[in-house]
């Protein structure tokens, strides 16, 4: 035999608990997050879950990727120069790009007018890009990386969504801040490669008879 209605009452207590928690816990968390300057969401959390998006925002995961950017060695706020530019205009990214949204023009030496291993123009059509990240995977010079820039709304798409080389370039400092883990791994890898190169160079030097 079962007494009907008791489970209904139990259900009511559950929703009342949510109602009360949304005020008590939600208030505490709002206060704490104001202090920290960020919002946290976890399945075990109680209370209000809403993130008031333009005012508050969740931190995106590090490997979250939207559009590629070009890296130059420098500080934030600096202007990129041909010397600090990492891209060598090899064109691998443009070849592997599945929707073919990358367009590169090789740079020329201003004095001799000979082609140099630097890009002078670099276009990415943001509407065509499918955010796959192949370009960043294939780049042998660590020059193109995926960024977190997801707020890309514009009123038209034929001009402001064709990103040129000036818009695409970000500094290594900016990249190290947004992708600390990836940047650290890259530094370790680059150092190991440099060490190996130096070791082989030293070995070659030792083998070769001194001139």
């Amino acid at each position: 035999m079962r007494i009907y209605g008791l489970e209904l009452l139990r259900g009511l207590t559950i929703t009342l608990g949510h109602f009360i928690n949304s005020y008590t816990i939600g208030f505490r968390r709002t206060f704490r997050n104001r202090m920290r300057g960020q919002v946290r969401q976890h399945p075990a959390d109680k209370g209000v879950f809403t993130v008031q998006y333009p005012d508050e925002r969740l931190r995106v995961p590090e490997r979250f990727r939207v559009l590629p950017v070009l890296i130059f060695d420098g500080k934030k706020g600096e202007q990129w120069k041909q010397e600090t530019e990492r891209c060598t205009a090899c064109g691998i990214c443009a070849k592997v790009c599945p929707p073919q949204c990358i367009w590169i023009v090789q740079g020329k030496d201003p004095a001799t007018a000979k082609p140099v291993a630097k890009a002078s123009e670099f276009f990415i059509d943001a509407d065509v890009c499918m955010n796959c990240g192949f370009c960043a995977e294939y780049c042998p010079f660590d020059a193109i990386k995926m960024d977190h820039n997801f707020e890309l709304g514009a009123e038209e798409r034929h001009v402001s969504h064709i990103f040129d080389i000036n818009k695409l370039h970000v500094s290594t400092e900016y990249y190290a801040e947004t992708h600390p883990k990836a940047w650290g791994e890259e530094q370790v890898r680059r150092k190991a490669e440099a060490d190996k190169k130096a070791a082989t160079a030293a070995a070659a030097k030792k083998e070769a008879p001194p001139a």
Partner: protein
Amino acid sequence: MGMILPEWINTLIRLVIPIGIILALAPVGMMYLTWLERKVIARIQDRVGPNRVGLYGLLQPIADGIKMLTKEDVVPAGADPICHFLAPVIIVVPALFLFTVLPFGPRLVAASLTTGLLFFVAIGSLGTLAIFMAGWGSRNKFSLLGAARTAAQLIAYEVPLVLSLVVVPMIAGSLNLVEIVRAQQGRWFILTPWGFTGFFLLLTAGLAEVNRTPFDLPEAESEIVAGFHTEYSGMKFALFYMAEFLSTLAMSGLISVLFLGGWMGPLLPDWLWMSLKTFLLIFVMIWIRGTFPRFRIDQLMGFAWKVLLPVSLANILGAASCVLIAGFWGNLLAALLVFGTFLVTTQLWLQPKPQLTTRWVQVGSS
């Protein structure tokens, strides 16, 4: 005032002022009920609710009102224009009428009718007519289905509603709502066994009467789009909502008058106590909406006829036994009657049917 002005002006003023107050306060109250409902439901679901328009979203109802007023008013081709136009007008009138008999204080009542309770029940079920007009006039199958469901549901729930109301005049000895509140001077009716049962019966049947969740089958959006108001837009749609919220408000007011002692309470003024009790009941209704899913139509009908009706009949017997046998034994008898009936009816008819086990046969085997 009566000394200077002629008699007819005096009477007119006495009539016009309360009517004016009701007409002015009811739409405002309804607008802020929508706000309250959205807020409470949001909190139950761990959300924030409207909070963009004004402080705590307090201007949201006004923004919604402006939106409703400026929207296009569409009348479907092939609709009955008179029915379609009149339905939203007619549905608001009975909802407003309900407030005339509700006492917000010993003298704060627009019309202290001797048959106030009867008036409330009679006017309260008039809304069905407007809903059926809307369903018929829209020339839409969903509207008609919703209207048919409304008619079926209201006929089913009117019976336990009235039967659960009957106990109050039995004990209070009057149909006048002011007298009923006065009769609760010693203790509120909810503290008696028959009053306790009556309160829950009336709350359940009242929820069904004003088409609120879990009894909102006439506008079940997952099955029949929006039911009877599928083909309404703009201000006509808003009028349907207004009628629904006004009926909710009036039903909460009636329950607090009948069982929660109306305006009675210590310290605070009369009207404030009455408003507090009404809003407490409204909160309970919103809370129920935030908790329970909608009934299926056969469950809805089964619940009304198989459980609510026998229990409300037993409750009338219980109230009678309380009058006959005063004191503890009468109360015990009333409680036992109701509880026994509840147990018997639920065990008999609400028990889920035994599940048939599915036997799978492999194709190709002998």
